[in-house]
């Protein structure tokens, strides 16, 4: 399996993108200002969990 670098992580901390309200982010993260303009609270919920994935660990260590 090919490993892909996290090419955009430097642009924005996704944990914050997904975990905090847009208003709280707006003061520190440029991209989030857009979200603040839309008045969109950004929160993380279970429905965003992806269906098809697995932990990348050897058998027995998951």
């Amino acid at each position, binding site marked *: *399996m090919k490993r892909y670098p996290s090419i955009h*992580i430097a642009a*924005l*901390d996704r944990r914050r993108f997904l975990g905090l309200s847009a208003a709280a982010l707006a003061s520190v993260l440029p991209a989030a200002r857009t979200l603040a303009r839309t008045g969109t609270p950004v929160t993380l919920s279970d429905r*965003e969990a*992806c269906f*098809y*994935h697995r932990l*990348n660990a050897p058998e027995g260590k998951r």
Partner: protein
Amino acid sequence: MTEVACELCPRGCVIPEGGAGDCRVRVNIDGRLRASTYGRPSAIHIDPMEKKPLYHFHPGSPVFSIATAGCNLHCLNCQNWQLSQRGGEEMEKVYRADPDQVVALAREQGCESIAYTYSDPIVFYEYVEDTGRLAHEGGLNNVFVTAGYINREPLRRLCRVLDASNTDLKAFDDRFYREVNAGSLEPVLDALVTFREEGVWLEVTNLVIPTLNDDLVMIRRMARWIRDELGEGTPLHFSRFHPQYRMRNLPPTSGETLDRARQEALDAGLQYVYVGNVLGHEGNNTYCPVDGTLLIGRIGFHITENNLTGDGRCPSCGHPVPGVWQ
């Protein structure tokens, strides 16, 4: 640091904590993979069905069309690269539209269908499934416009909520996929067959790019494969290329090239072969493959006449035209 392997598409990205997959939108948060654009579309429009393009599925009807950022392919000629080649956090516009809101908006706007389109909806898979389920409950159709670069198991599951797809077959050449799209051919062929097996109405689009995939021998092989594996009644759209994004060095596809491609596919036995992105071309229209009667006349995305009978037959000879007409 917990790595997560995404199993949605053939890339099989292994994503470190805090990182994103190649699509830019499926992210590893605390060892759990999240679809970061769920409920956060960046494009919402109402289009005619012909724009997808779907010519044999509820012709002339308006489609509520949504897309989020991201894509699992990286086509050098992408026409929606501002949307597809970005992550959600990089977009200038991010709306908030939960699945129930999408369905309500679509109904409010008088749309019969919802299209998941513009970027590749594979990357917002869970959003499509949840919205699609609610759409069905509300009596709406779901249209999936995709490049088909997805693993078979997730696609089979998604087909339960899909009614129609226009799937790109970008070339019948694995090398082309690797060099132009950063993908590969085989998974796309698998996806096309899966759509057919699962009973999703399917139309195929091939964007003809001068010098790169306009070889008539390849087009003939592609048409024969479609005839044999998907059926002679499968509509095939040859689309005109316009210089875009990172492929501005090539000219638009000539009308002659599109004519030759269309003729090649007709000669191979496909019954409904169209030419797109060329206004007023006779290949915009649907003709009866038996007696040549004009069945549906189109100029661009607009229908000028529809002569099909109510149950989708040629009015002259009664030949049944495959599609979903009502």
